[in-house]
């Protein structure tokens, strides 16, 4: 039986050195599988869905979707859509979830300025390996699995937010309702690059439809300042029927000229990466969840509430949302009461972007003794903390 590979034992120690390898015989692509955290896209396997699996109702432009974390929709009058975390996945690839967008109200004849695209915003701290803005600018490769009932040409835009420069590439969905893997490689931008900070620096935009404002020119396939007419040229209109749907999973953006196997992260690591941008203060008290220490301030307020974050948030001044129906409860001395009308967060102290602790002040209570220790928590449902880009 012929050997197709030589076993390790066939080599004497030190017998294969640099001089035995022809120049270029061992390429970056053959080594890259060992590079950890090479995927710039967070939650590319769509496994984390802290906002719920969905499906959502219609959403406003710029809203982070219900379904997989870290993705949002940018839309202007391009029908209505529902998002969800779907279990429809390509067979045998290891994925358990995909992101599904389902057209809920059609726009068969979009106006010039209409558009919709799925967007993953990327933090500047995660773009250093691009080396953009120098002669060493690296090529990038985006790979993903996609499926739609509507075949045709689709556009992906790579967007340097800090410098308002972009590059678009097309891909083709060839077979209706069939999972296909797409790979797109682009050159690096030697002119400028994203800022190395915690800001909104870069984005991947999967277009699903656009009007002539964005399609009337020539597709911009090299790095240039954004010219609207050249952004999404050739894009099919996925919004033209409520029967239309689009799935994506296995999204990976990496440095290099070829796509490596998808980098599956441990679940807890993937969750923590998402929680840098969004987490929920879990419901407490009667629901059995954790409480958070604070102190009473006057008869109606609880101040200096410390809320532990799962990881350092991107910013120390996130937003906090009281969801419809949520109320707060406080325990102080022998006193326990719920807030009137849901209560309010009255302030949030900026504890800095490297802090793992938030400080909240809330009100909506009455009859509290001033200046005593209190334990606080939301009940009925949790309170999202948002540090998204």
């Amino acid at each position, binding site marked *: 039986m012929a050997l197709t590979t030589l076993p390790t034992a066939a080599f004497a120690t030190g017998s294969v050195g640099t001089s035995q390898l022809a120049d270029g015989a061992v390429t970056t692509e053959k080594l890259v599988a060992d590079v950890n955290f090479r995927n710039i896209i967070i939650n590319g396997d769509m496994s984390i869905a802290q906002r719920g699996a969905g499906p959502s109702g219609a959403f406003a432009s710029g809203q982070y979707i219900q379904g997989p974390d870290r993705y949002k929709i940018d839309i202007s009058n391009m029908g209505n859509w529902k998002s969800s975390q779907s279990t429809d996945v390509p067979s045998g690839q290891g994925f358990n979830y995909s992101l599904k967008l389902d057209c809920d109200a059609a726009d068969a004849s979009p106006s010039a300025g209409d558009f919709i695209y799925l967007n993953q915003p990327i933090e500047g701290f995660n773009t250093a390996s691009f080396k953009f803005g120098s002669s060493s600018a690296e090529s990038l490769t985006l790979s993903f699995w996609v499926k739609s009932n509507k075949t045709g040409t689709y556009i992906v835009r790579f967007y340097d937010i800090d410098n308002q420069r972009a590059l678009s590439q097309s891909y083709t969905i060839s077979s209706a309702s069939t999972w296909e893997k797409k790979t797109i490689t682009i050159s690096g931008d030697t002119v400028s690059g994203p800022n190395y900070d915690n800001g909104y620096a870069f984005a991947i935009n999967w277009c699903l439809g656009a009007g002539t404002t964005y399609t009337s020119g020539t597709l911009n396939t090299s790095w240039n300042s954004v010219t609207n007419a050249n952004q999404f040229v050739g894009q099919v209109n996925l919004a033209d029927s409520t029967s239309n749907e689009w799935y994506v999973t296995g999204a990976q953006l990496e440095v290099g000229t070829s796509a490596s196997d998808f980098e599956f992260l441990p679940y807890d690591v993937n969750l923590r990466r998402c929680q840098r941008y969004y987490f929920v203060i879990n419901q407490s008290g009667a629901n059995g969840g954790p409480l958070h220490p604070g102190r009473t*301030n006057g008869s109606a307020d609880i101040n200096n509430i410390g809320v532990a974050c799962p990881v350092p948030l991107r910013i120390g001044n996130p937003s906090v949302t*009281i969801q419809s129906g949520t109320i707060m409860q406080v325990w102080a001395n022998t006193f326990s009461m719920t807030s009137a009308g849901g209560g309010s967060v009255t302030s949030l102290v900026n504890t800095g972007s490297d802090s793992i602790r938030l400080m909240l002040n809330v009100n909506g209570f009455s009859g509290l003794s001033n200046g005593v220790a209190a334990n606080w928590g939301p009940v009925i449902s949790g309170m999202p903390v948002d540090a998204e880009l």
Partner: protein
Amino acid sequence: MIQTVEIFYVRNFDDTANIQGGYKITWSDNDNKTFVPLNGEGNRHYQEILEWVALGNTITDNGGGE
């Protein structure tokens, strides 16, 4: 979409006066209330408030008399 934005007030540490605590956003498409710090640098909701004001909308400020 943003429906209203209001400056929210909190009692100071000595419980002697109201001081500005942040912005409260109400939304047109749900009943949620989102609270945004006064120092909103880097906060996406703060950016949305700025864009909403640039469209000609006005932040409500009742001076803590709510």
